[in-house]
């Protein structure tokens, strides 16, 4: 049988991205459409005009975009040197730092807010303020820049830059003309993700921003739950989606202007990292340590210290008690953690599979893949209320509302853009002619995948899988909207519930559980990194 008949190959390459698109259609598009139709069904245009005519709506929308943009700029500014340092230099503790930055992803906002107060309050710079919001957003999102941008950076073929230097370019010119264009795609991808994450952040705004600050996300919650004016909530949700669409289009355009194949394949890559020996490299090294130390490590140390506080001393009492179910929880904290890890494995598997087929389709110029990429951004940019109530209304007839599978499926959907951004640079780094050459020499498509693609993308896939696990284990918003019994009770829900009642032992357990979650996901990231690098 001739394996290279174009029609067959066409079907073969279109089928996986179609599946991914169907998955997103069922879990993103359909529920959102269902809830919007349900909420706006009988609403007339005068009412819509009245809602859109409110000054408050536009000032809230303005502040939402403003804080998200500022948070993104700050995260990029602080993440850029860290990404550069980790990707290009032989920094001490490089792997540890790469894993540490992932930990914030899984720490519950309630706990982080308290840690931020403890740390920065001690320096007297902490009031409920815009600064507090920005600091927390950098804390949560630094990993996106470090891993997505840094991952791409470490793949750049150093020979191009060397050649530019030899031809007389200054190091700034080399960066601007050679390195930066290659980084455009990953930069746009990470900026988009960070922006959307901050755009829809909920707990941070409420807990650290103080009661006078409102965003579209907090307003949707207020109108849908407290006031039950579903039409207003739906209009605000539509505004959110407009911003997501505009952003996706802008990012897509910016990315498309990037050179097609600037990245080199792993085989020709010069993996050598530069030693820290020159003045500038030392400055960079110190910067990385200071940024990570202040933004990431300090709040974590505060958290660990507080989790160990027992009465007037310190000890592991709260950790020991995690195996017991206290009255306020349906299952023990440890059990909830096991649930979380089970959901995370399923979610990561789905997210990675979707991301790989999507990235391959995009790399081959497929429109389907690009569409999946765009739709995958939607869950990040729409409110958890919209998605949660969407499942409620959209799946009413399928008897899916209470299915446990809904939890990992929703987690996979939310994790997909992170995984996609991580593996995209690796997949596009495989020159098409390499594939063609292999095929020309008689390799079957399967062999091409196994012998050529897999070794090159392995590390990025593992890194993306770690990301998906972190997103799933830390996910609170959407999960809290899914009705579930005790078997669907996850660790972040447990932390939240433990902190919703007075009592030192409950609070201690909440903090201890947070530390354990962070520890597990941090070590997993470390292991995956190691496995990925060992070739």
């Amino acid at each position, binding site marked *: 049988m001739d394996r290279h008949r174009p029609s067959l190959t066409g079907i073969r390459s279109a089928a996986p991205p179609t599946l991914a698109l169907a998955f997103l*259609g069922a879990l993103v*598009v359909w529920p959102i459409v269902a*809830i919007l139709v*349900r*909420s*706006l*069904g*009988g*609403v007339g245009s005068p009412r819509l005009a009245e809602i859109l005519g409110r000054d408050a709506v536009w000032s809230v929308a303005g502040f939402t975009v403003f804080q998200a943009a500022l948070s993104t700029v700050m995260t990029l500014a602080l993440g850029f040197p860290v990404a550069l340092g980790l990707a290009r230099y032989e920094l001490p503790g490089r792997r540890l730092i790469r894993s540490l930055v992932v930990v914030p992803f899984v720490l519950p906002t309630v706990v982080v807010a*308290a840690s931020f*107060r*403890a740390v920065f309050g001690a320096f007297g710079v902490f009031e409920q303020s815009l600064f507090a919001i920005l600091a927390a957003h950098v804390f949560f999102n630094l990993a996106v820049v470090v891993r997505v941008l840094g991952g791409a950076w470490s793949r750049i073929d150093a020979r191009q830059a060397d050649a530019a230097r030899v031809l007389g370019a200054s190091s700034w010119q080399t960066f601007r003309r050679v390195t930066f264009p290659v980084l455009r795609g990953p930069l746009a991808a990470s900026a988009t993700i960070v922006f959307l994450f901050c755009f829809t952040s909920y707990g941070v705004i*409420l*807990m650290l921003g*103080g*009661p*006078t600050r409102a965003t579209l996300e*907090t307003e949707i*919650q*207020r109108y*849908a*739950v*407290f*006031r*039950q004016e*579903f039409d207003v909530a739906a209009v605000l949700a539509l505004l959110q989606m407009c911003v997501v669409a505009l952003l996706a289009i802008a990012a897509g355009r910016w990315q498309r202007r990037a050179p097609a194949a600037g990245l080199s394949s792993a085989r020709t890559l010069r993996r050598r990292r530069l030693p820290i020996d020159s003045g500038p490299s030392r400055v960079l090294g110190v910067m990385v340590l200071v940024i990570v130390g202040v933004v990431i490590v300090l709040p974590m140390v505060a958290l660990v210290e507080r989790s160990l506080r*027992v*009465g007037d001393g310190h000890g592991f*009492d709260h950790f020991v008690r995690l195996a017991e*179910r206290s*009255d*306020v929880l*349906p299952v023990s904290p440890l059990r909830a953690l096991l649930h979380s890890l089970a959901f995370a494995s399923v979610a990561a598997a789905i997210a990675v599979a979707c991301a790989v087929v999507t990235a391959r389709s995009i790399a081959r110029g497929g429109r389907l893949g690009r569409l999946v990429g765009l739709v995958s951004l939607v869950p990040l940019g729409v409110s958890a209320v919209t998605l*949660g*109530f969407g499942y*409620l*209304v959209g799946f*009413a*007839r*399928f008897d899916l*509302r*209470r299915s446990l599978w809904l939890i990992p499926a929703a987690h996979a959907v939310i994790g997909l853009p992170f995984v996609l951004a991580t593996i995209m640079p690796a997949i596009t780094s495989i020159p098409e002619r390499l594939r063609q050459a292999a095929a020309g020499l008689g390799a079957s498509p399967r062999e091409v995948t196994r012998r050529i693609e897999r070794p090159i993308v392995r590390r990025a896939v593992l890194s993306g899988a770690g990301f998906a696990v972190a997103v799933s284990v830390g996910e609170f918003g959407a999960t*809290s*909207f*899914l*009705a*579930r*019994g005790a078997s669907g009770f996850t660790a972040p*829900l447990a932390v939240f*519930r433990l*902190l*919703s*009642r*007075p*009592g*030192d*032992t*409950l*609070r*201690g357990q909440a903090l201890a559980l947070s530390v354990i979650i962070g520890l597990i996901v941090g070590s997993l990231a470390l292991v995956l990194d190691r496995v990925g690098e060992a070739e």
Partner: protein
Amino acid sequence: MLHPDRDPSDRSPQAPLPPTIARRSRRLATACASVLAATACGGSELVASGPVTLTLVTHESFTVSDGIFDSFTAETGITVEVVGAGDAGEIVSRAVLSKGQPEGDVLFGIDNTFLQRGLDAEIFLAYESPMLASVPEALQLDPEHRVTPIDYGDVCVNYWIDALPGDPPTTLDDLAEPELASSFVTQNPETSSPGFAFLLATIARYGEDGWENYWQRLADGGVTVEAGWEGAYYGQFVAGGGDKALVTSYASSPVAEVVFADPPVDVAPTGVLTDSCFRQIEFAGILDGTEHAEQAGALIDFLLSEEFQADIPLNMFVVPANAEVELPPEFVEHGVTVENPLTLTPQEIEEHRSAWTERWTDIVLR
């Protein structure tokens, strides 16, 4: 994309369609069934109808002891599955959005601050439980019995005894004195259930004409506002290392401070300003659209039974509605009895909710 065959009732609340014949006849059947059940009175018929699983939809603060439904299952053959999500406000939104296609058979946890909304949306089927004989009249807010009171609790200002600048306050007026107002942290009524209850307490006390002035005094005195209970209690209040001596919490919070103390303590470190208490009553109701209305009634009865009611206090830190059930010793020793809690009718609350919170926002946050 598949489009599910939608029930006519699953439309916007603005344009409800008349119930179809099928729905009408189902309702009729349900009504007959409940009459039969009431007259024949008993679990034996229920067993005969084959094994049924009921879904109890509730908020995420719902916790019970393991195996609490075992005796109910043994007696009636009905298995109970508990699914929870969100808070008291959210479960009502969910029930209204999924009207006609409910997530379960019985909803537990709608409270008097959201009750009217649920009643107006017609999401419940009426059921008058024989167990109501043991429930005080004051808790039975719906004369049509579309909902049944299961428990109640009071939202009250708490204080950390050792951190007060002077004597403990005894009245709401004391709280507005500048030295106390400045060390008082409460919650935004639009994002927090206790925060809303405390606003209602002040409205119940000072009336439409006086509450705004009271809050002006609190604001001038420097009251702090947090979005949620956690931020107030564990962020600003002394309990979590903050410096505020007073916080809006629950009458049962001192009990929890003792039960979950580490190391164990004999006396609660916090006290309750009983003059500030607003009563929250939690109800259960049978969701319209259930196929097991008859069995759902049996579950409501069980929720009011002595066995279930006695399990409530130390799990959910609220007081059983069944007056014949004794409180556990921890509640008797460390809890306070609120003799005359403040209250407003569900109708008043629903009618003014948005106007009141908007005024509150103007006074306190702007």
